[in-house]
């Protein structure tokens, strides 16, 4: 398989050079662009597998750019931003960005996020386009674009990145047993979090968070095999 082609839009020349180097060293093909104009030209040179986009480009708003990008192609977009305000992050993700890397970041984090987004099945993206990316089970609502869990009463329930990913994996395999090993593998896909907590700890924390009003969380332990979300999941 050919090296994934990454379009990097970053206005700071040195940072752009450093990022290009870091990405190339990790086996990606990179097309650098300093601004929106260069970015559009880059599209004419060939297919793009992923776009790394600095939100704060001179003259344009990264969010607007993201919106027009979304109309032209469905390559995944990762925002790079010097602002890490949660609101910015959510707005970016809701506009259809696939991830959000706050500055400053290290090579490890950058590569991990790029790989994770590239690994994500394109099917999941289509889902996001069709609906609002909401998963519902047992009264709970999981919003994929906002990476947010809401309780049956509508309250936000805080999840760590690893817990969120684990819950998404359980939902994707609802009413089927997932082997522990598979879950560990899936959680490894998220390197940025670097949490070395075992899947069991994450599951027990999720259970605690998903329990409510005298009811146990709908996550079953299947001894010797793995775990199962034992309620149906609907998508919207």
């Amino acid at each position: 398989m050919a090296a994934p082609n990454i379009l990097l839009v970053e206005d700071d020349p040195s940072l752009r050079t450093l990022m290009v180097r870091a990405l190339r060293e990790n086996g990606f093909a990179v097309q650098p662009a300093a601004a929106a104009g260069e970015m559009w030209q880059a599209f004419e040179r060939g297919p793009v597998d992923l776009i790394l986009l600095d939100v704060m480009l001179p003259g344009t708003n990264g969010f607007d750019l993201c919106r027009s990008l979304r109309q032209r192609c469905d390559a995944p977009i990762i925002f790079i931003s010097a602002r890490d305000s949660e609101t910015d992050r959510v707005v970016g993700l809701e506009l259809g960005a696939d991830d959000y890397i706050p500055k400053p970041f290290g090579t490890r984090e950058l590569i991990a996020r790029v790989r994770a987004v590239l690994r994500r099945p394109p099917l999941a993206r289509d889902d996001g386009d069709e609906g609002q990316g909401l998963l519902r089970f047992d009264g709970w609502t999981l919003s994929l674009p906002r990476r947010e869990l809401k309780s049956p009463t509508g309250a936000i329930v805080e999840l760590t990145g690893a817990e969120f990913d684990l819950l998404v994996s359980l939902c994707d395999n609802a009413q089927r047993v997932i082997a522990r090993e598979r879950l560990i593998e899936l959680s490894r896909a998220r390197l940025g979090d670097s949490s070395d907590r075992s899947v069991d700890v994450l599951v027990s924390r999720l259970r605690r968070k998903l329990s409510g009003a005298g009811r146990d969380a709908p996550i079953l332990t299947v001894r010797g095999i793995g775990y199962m979300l034992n309620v149906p999941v609907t998508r919207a």
Partner: protein
Amino acid sequence: MTARLPGRPLGLIGQIVAILLLTVLIEFAISTLLYERASQFAVRDDEARRIAEHLVISRHLIAERATEDRPAMARDLTTDRYGVTWSPARPNSAPISPPLDGMRDQIIAWEPSLANTQLDVRLASPGRSSVVTGSFQLRDGSWLLFRTLEPVHGLNLATERIALALIPAAALVLLGGLAVGRVLQPLRQLAAAADRFGGSGEEMVPEQGPADVARVIAAFNRMQARIRNLIVDRTQALAAVGHDFRTPLARLKLRAEAIAQADARDAIVADIAEMEAMVASLLAYLGGEEDPEEPVPTDIAVLCATMVDNAVDRGLDARYLGPLHLESRIRPVAFKRAIANLVDNALQYGSQATVTLANLGADFQITVEDNGPGLPENMMARVLEPFVRLDTARPRDTVGFGLGLPIVARFVEREGGRLRLRNLPQGGLAAEITLKRR
């Protein structure tokens, strides 16, 4: 040429003078009315008749005497009830003695012969006992003065009069006070606004009240706007610098990875991490004001427990005690930052952090306790101010600008809650946040 503005409010002094004038005018009107009413006071018919008879007899007897005998006769005519004096000339009536016209009419009704004698009946020295004095002219032009020696029945209005005079006076004092209070009301609003200034939100005081006060309020509003603009400008500039800092930091971080020497690289990476934390805390502190985050229903208990889990995952000793779930409307990002700061702080100064969540019904309370050295009492308020660090007694190992607790304090203030720091009896510090459950 500017015409005088119609309806332009009077100055403060003008308004107070107007109030005084109004008060005095009303008092004057009421007193006059009372004074007038005194003349309507009537005595019992027999009293008037007795006076009338005594006057007629006195007139008759004195008129018969020679001039030199008249004072003696007058003395003889003085009884226990009435005093009689003769005077060759018209006596001056006491300055404050309301005429008793009603009584005069009663007397004349009994003795019409007194009608043409310039009979004058007055209430002597009102306010004390109701003694009636009077005078009338004899045919030869001299005057006979009389006064009652006992208070006249039915005329005993001293206390009534005082009370009557006091009621309008008291009412007027009250009215005047209220009116002055109304004039000064905008000033009080101004004071309250000045007190609140610096809190959340901008508050323009309505420009009302006397011209001077309105001018002060207008000036205050302009000053408020200027200060606000200044702060916003500075904040934005500082925030922009903070954001801009992150690009060179990102470059540094990427470049540091290329350093071959492991210990130098680790040291540089640690320095970058510290700078990153400083920028983050600065932006968090500055960002509170313009943060568009809205309060949303949030599971407080899960959030607190997650902050504890995060600390545990970093290999630190933290515990959460409290319910599994507790929902309330809150700004989740700011709240998360506040709890994280408190937990970080606790683990900075102690080796163990305990987060306790208590449901108090209408409120809920989060307490973050550590087992560190606690805080000297005189530092309790200071640590909530930005850029204050307690490094004097400690090695400089804190990360950031000492904005951890100020960020918490700002958040709590914005949510309308209370933040309290106290030393624990067993040692260590407890930070206690009390918030309304919404």
